[in-house]
């Protein structure tokens, strides 16, 4: 990656993760990894966010919360599933209260594997999301022009 075209803001929601991936997402913000040097800011407001980071699998109760947050985010937006649980349910796949990965309820663009996903791979996912965001922005512009 040579340059970052925009400074995306990200929103983090913990689906039903064991905390491991959440803590690693937060660790990305802190001095050793420091994603803020790319202009990335962790925001609490869905309407401010470009990238939606979700950790953990989806269950009946947070299904509506995830859908709600997703629908409130403005286009273009990218969804990043962080950790194996968010990708497909992981070790908890067989639990009675887990429906599976995030892609069961909203479209996922980028999958970050790992248990817990390492900060390096989370950042890699976010950087890929920036590239995808550029592409999506083009098509959003076209739709508006037509």
């Amino acid at each position: 990656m040579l340059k970052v075209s925009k400074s995306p803001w990200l929103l983090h929601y913990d689906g039903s993760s064991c905390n491991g991936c959440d803590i690693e997402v937060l660790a990305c913000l802190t001095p050793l990894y420091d994603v803020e040097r790319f202009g990335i800011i962790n925001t609490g407001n869905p309407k401010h966010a470009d990238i939606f980071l979700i950790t953990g699998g989806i269950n009946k109760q947070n299904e509506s919360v995830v859908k709600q947050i997703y629908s409130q985010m403005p286009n273009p937006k990218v969804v990043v599933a962080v950790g194996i649980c968010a990708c497909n349910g992981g070790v908890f796949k067989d639990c009675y209260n887990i429906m599976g990965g995030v892609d069961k309820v909203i479209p996922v663009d980028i999958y970050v594997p790992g248990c817990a996903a390492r900060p390096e791979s989370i950042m890699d996912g976010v950087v890929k999301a920036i590239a995808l965001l550029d592409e999506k922005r083009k098509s959003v512009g076209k739709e508006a022009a037509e």
Partner: protein
Amino acid sequence: MTDGELITITLSDLVPKVLQMKHDGYRLAQICAVRTKEGYELSYSFAKEYDMVNLRLAIGEDDEVTSISDIYEPAFLYENEMVDLFGVKIKLISLDYQGKLYRIAKETPFK
């Protein structure tokens, strides 16, 4: 083999025994249920300093247990948990969530 004492009690003994525990200065450590063939096995654990005493109560599926949440306030969380996950019938819980503490898709999954 368990950690600490294990006392088997009957349904009618529960409240007097728990009152005795409270009187003796024990704090509530935990309450949990186990599904058995006949019904449930409830364990009430109490701790004083580092010692633990467990009250073991075996009940049938339809037996109704009296809540101890008016004796030990934190019991309401454990009791609601047993109602939600196991379907144990408990009456007189101080804060009764009516099966809504864990809002899960499958009702009483451990039953």
